[in-house]
């Protein structure tokens, strides 16, 4: 290795850093005790992914990717968190995170999932480039962790957050594999996400109004 970095070698290093940032945000997201902190870590994670897309777009001089990065940043780091915070304020629920599994345990499980995702990508796609592997494994890890959050946390509200982490994972997977889909599709997906958070927000509010609770323990009437 040469002691001074060259511009070509900067991109992988930058990607390394952003991926590390995203993963740390994810772990902190798992470890957060309060819903507000969880929303913030989600926003920070989305910011990392948007910056990643922007950086790769810059490196490849791809205007579409840059535009998309800006739109994703606005949608995922500003609008969705704002809506989520609005819902959180409107619904007078306990501000803490309630979980079926202890929080440190879920953090460790999250770490395990990151390792598993890494192991899987290394063995399924062994002859790919470093960047590909890294982003793919991050995307997979986010999908796994989002699923984990949806399964172990008690509140309906946290399920929304888990869903959006899964979505960020798919965003990352998309970047790793195809880099970018046709513009209109990407925009459509983002629009659906915004629509989704609105719909789920209203539903959470209505559930709260008629159940006086938003934990999933209450949502167990319908069976069989």
């Amino acid at each position, binding site marked *: 290795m040469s*002691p001074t970095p060259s511009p070509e070698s900067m991109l992988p290093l930058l990607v390394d850093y952003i991926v590390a940032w995203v993963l*740390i945000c994810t*772990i902190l997201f798992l470890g957060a005790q309060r819903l507000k902190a969880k929303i913030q870590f989600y926003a920070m994670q989305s910011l990392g992914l948007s910056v990643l897309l922007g950086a790769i777009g810059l490196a490849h001089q791809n205007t579409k990717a840059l535009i998309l990065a800006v739109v994703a940043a606005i949608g995922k780091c500003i609008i969705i968190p704002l809506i989520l915070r609005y819902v959180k304020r409107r619904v007078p629920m306990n501000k803490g995170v309630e979980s079926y599994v202890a929080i440190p345990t879920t953090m460790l499980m999250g770490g395990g999932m990151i390792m598993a995702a890494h192991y899987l990508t290394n063995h399924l796609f*062994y002859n790919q480039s470093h960047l590909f592997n*890294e982003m793919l494994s991050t995307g997979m890890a986010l999908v796994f962790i989002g699923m984990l959050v949806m399964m172990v946390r008690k509140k309906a509200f946290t399920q929304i957050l888990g869903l959006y982490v899964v979505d960020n994972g798919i965003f990352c997977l998309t970047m790793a594999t195809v880099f970018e889909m046709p513009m209109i599709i990407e925009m459509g997906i983002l629009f659906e996400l915004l629509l989704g958070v609105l719909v789920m927000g209203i539903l959470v509010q209505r559930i709260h109004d008629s159940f006086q609770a938003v934990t999933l323990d209450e949502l167990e009437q319908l069976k069989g």
Partner: protein
Amino acid sequence: MTQVYEIVQSVLFQFGLAFALSPLVNTALKKWKALLQGRQGPPYLQGYYDLLKYFRKETVVSDQTSALFLATPVINFVCIGAVSLLIPTFVAPQVFAPIGGILVMVYLLGLARFFMAAAALEPGGGFCSMGSSREMMIATLIEPVLLLALFTFAKLTNTQQLLALPSALSSQGLFLYTPAYALAALALFVVSLAEMGRVPFDNPETHYELTMIHEGMLLEYSGKPLGLMFWSAWTKQFLILSLLANILFPFHMATSANIAALALALLAFIGKLIAVGLIIVIVETAIAKMRLFRVKEVLGASLILAVLALIFSVEQSGGLPK
């Protein structure tokens, strides 16, 4: 000839320097913290006065204890002394490297900790026992993180000799600052605070019964053994500080025997220590001591950081061995 020279260097600048400077460093940390909080703080030489005081005092030992109680301070001192030979200061002579690397260092610290906790159980005092049980709980959390973080550096540099770490790290130039390095350094920093018994985990300055850990174990000691215990604890702190300093800023080590180079390296080393010390003091001032059951969450988080670091270091070196 070079071997003899390196042994001399080792004994003087690693073993000697550590034990000589550690009271000063401990007091300095206390003083800076006080200054940052708008207090006067102790004079810089307070650590030496304290040691002198302890060594002049009479030793009182409970008649319920066995020989282990009095042997422990010596064992502790010896363990820390051995560790001091493995950790680079401003010189890194390789002469004692064959003793071992990361594992030996971590387990020598573990040995010292074991004897300390065992001896604290001897007099049968309630606070002593509580201190040792807490110490062991934290130790189980510290050791894996410490090992994983140091393994990351080993993976990055292909050496597991602590003495060889700084030069191997600095040879990478600016490429050193990869996520793997950053994450491992962060994990190492957090776990070092725990290992040194600093604020978010333990408070070295108080004897508040409900929270004390290290102080609790020393409650039944007095006189010379107490002095020895404090001295070893401070030296351990110094050693970890210097390891941290040399990993965070692995530059400007003395590579030749010439006096000017040594002096320059010593100056750089002092600068590094001050930098790390200041970071620690600021962190300590900024955060409050944690409740004991939160400790495991923070250390768990740093464990995950260390795991992430290891993953990244594996990525960086081109995937898992096939």
